[in-house]
């Protein structure tokens, strides 16, 4: 079994291989600060963090309402710009380590601890972990606000912006920030800065999230401003029942014979046997029955044996699993059996 001991210092053993491949034309991807506007602002009582809610995949909007303000500890939050997976996993890892650290030291966690953990990890990866973070929180030593760049450098400032919309947001901050602002002023400044990013930067969009952290309380304001609500569609586009004509309807019951076998009783589950359903899923109705359409002639409804439905969570109407989407004339069939 190979040794797990890693000698101290950097490991450059892949350098020659990477340079060779680079000369052949396949270069390592550069760390980019991708579509986002994230900001942090120090005010009289603590920190206000802000973020937009657009996640992009190149030119496409992948998520119209994602959450970029991540939880580190109760009184520390971190906004993440850059590669989404990197920011999510990095902040989750440090959050977990902070919890363990707090338990080990017996003290409330501090912002500089999270900052040191993040910067040491990011530097170790030499910028390949594309996470550009705005870390803010209030701890026993007071409020702190840091930015952490993908290569591991940190800055300590009273107001910071990161991401592709950072220039637009920073312009608003430079115009409007003063020391010792009130909570409402700070929140409206953050909202204005994120809005500047949303409307002037193509990589940012949708809604504004904010998080206000003070010494005794953290308030997460999800979608505090929604300046891009979709207009209501002018008409409904569903098909009326009977759009597809059928000439014959026959219903076949696939359950020929039913034998109920209760499996592993526990306190949490209700194991009473219901006549119409079986076993453990007694209190849950099966998801749906598949309806088959022979478009030329018959409409045949099939009832699947309930054995296929065990463990499938129930969805209330009108939500339908995408791969079971069927024309609306089948909708009533999808509501239990």
């Amino acid at each position, binding site marked *: 079994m190979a040794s797990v001991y890693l000698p101290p210092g950097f490991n450059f053993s892949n350098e020659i291989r990477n340079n060779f491949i680079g000369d052949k034309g396949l270069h390592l991807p550069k760390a980019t600060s991708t579509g986002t506007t994230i900001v942090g602002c120090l005010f009289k009582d603590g920190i206000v963090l802000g973020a937009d809610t657009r996640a992009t995949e190149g030119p496409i909007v992948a998520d119209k309402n994602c959450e970029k303000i991540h939880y580190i500890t109760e009184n520390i939050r971190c906004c993440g710009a850059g590669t989404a997976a990197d920011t999510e996993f990095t902040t989750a890892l440090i959050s977990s380590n902070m919890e363990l650290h707090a338990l080990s030291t017996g003290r409330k966690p501090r912002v500089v601890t999270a900052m040191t953990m993040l910067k040491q990890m990011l530097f170790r990866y030499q910028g390949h972990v594309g996470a550009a973070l705005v870390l803010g929180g209030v701890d026993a030593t007071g409020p702190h606000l840091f930015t952490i760049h993908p290569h591991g450098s940190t800055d300590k400032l009273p107001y910071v912006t990161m991401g592709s919309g950072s*220039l637009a947001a920073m312009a608003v901050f430079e115009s409007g920030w003063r020391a010792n602002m009130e909570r409402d002023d700070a929140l409206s400044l953050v909202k204005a800065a994120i809005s500047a990013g949303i409307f002037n930067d193509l990589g940012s969009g949708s809604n504004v999230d904010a998080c206000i952290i003070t010494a005794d309380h953290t308030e997460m304001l999800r979608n505090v401003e929604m300046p891009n609500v979709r207009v209501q569609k002018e008409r409904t586009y569903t098909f009326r029942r009977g759009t597809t004509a059928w000439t014959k309807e026959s219903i076949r019951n696939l359950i020929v014979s039913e034998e109920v076998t209760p499996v592993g009783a526990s306190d949490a589950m209700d194991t009473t046997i219901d006549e119409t359903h079986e076993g453990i899923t007694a209190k849950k109705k099966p998801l749906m029955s598949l309806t088959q359409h022979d478009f030329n002639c018959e409409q045949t409804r099939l009832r699947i044996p309930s054995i296929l439905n065990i463990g499938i969570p129930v969805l209330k109407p009108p939500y339908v699993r995408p791969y079971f989407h069927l024309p609306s004339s089948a909708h009533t069939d999808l509501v239990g059996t």
Partner: protein
Amino acid sequence: MDHFPTNWGRPRHDGVDAYGTYPIPQRPSNTPKDAFSAGIQRTQQPIVTGTSVLAIKYKDGIMMAADNLASYGSLARFKDIQRLQPVGAHTVIGAGGDMSDFQYIQGLLDELIVNEFTAQDGHNLGPAEIHNYLSKVMYSRRTKMNPLWNAILVGGIKDGKRFLSFVDLLGTTYSASTLATGYGAHIAQPLLRTAVEGKEDDLTEEDAVKILEQSMRVLYYRDARSIDKYQIAKVTVEGVTISESKRLETSWSFAEGIRGYGAQTQ
């Protein structure tokens, strides 16, 4: 393969580019040459550069702002350059980018105005005409792969109608009530848009000066190739006025209490 039978059996003649193989500047020609022509190069990169120019429409006309710096790379070389230029009685242009190309453009526009004046036909060139002329010049230079490396804002008011447009080294043109070139497009444009869009007819001169000054201040904070000395040009029905150089008031004490960049406390 040489298709011309008269050339078969004869030495190859390189004085003629029969198939247009060489690009235009390199084709053999027998026009008289001077000693300088061998050293002609096309603009590959701007050398002495000006940074952003900002412009907005307001109630009485157009206002444009630009700082007084021409940088030589990262050196702040010429700190008293005027990058705003009146053209005729109705127009002002402001340019960022290569300053030598801007001086050439100033010469072209001078010639244009003088010719228009001497024609004495009762017509004057307005901002729309100046912008149109410049856009043709810029695009034709771009097609010859020898651009004038500038981003120019053209603003003015003629017959009561305000005009504000942009033209750049590629020949791209567009028009809006707030415009900015260079870093100003990223930093100042969000501020200008929130302040001006929708309110062009209500914005007073005072407010317009304030918003431009604020934007120039933010640019001085965040653009590493700017200085705190700038001028504002105003075009109204009365004519074009370019102000004296103003100095920006800046505040750098925002992080007085902060020590270090991370865990340091002293």
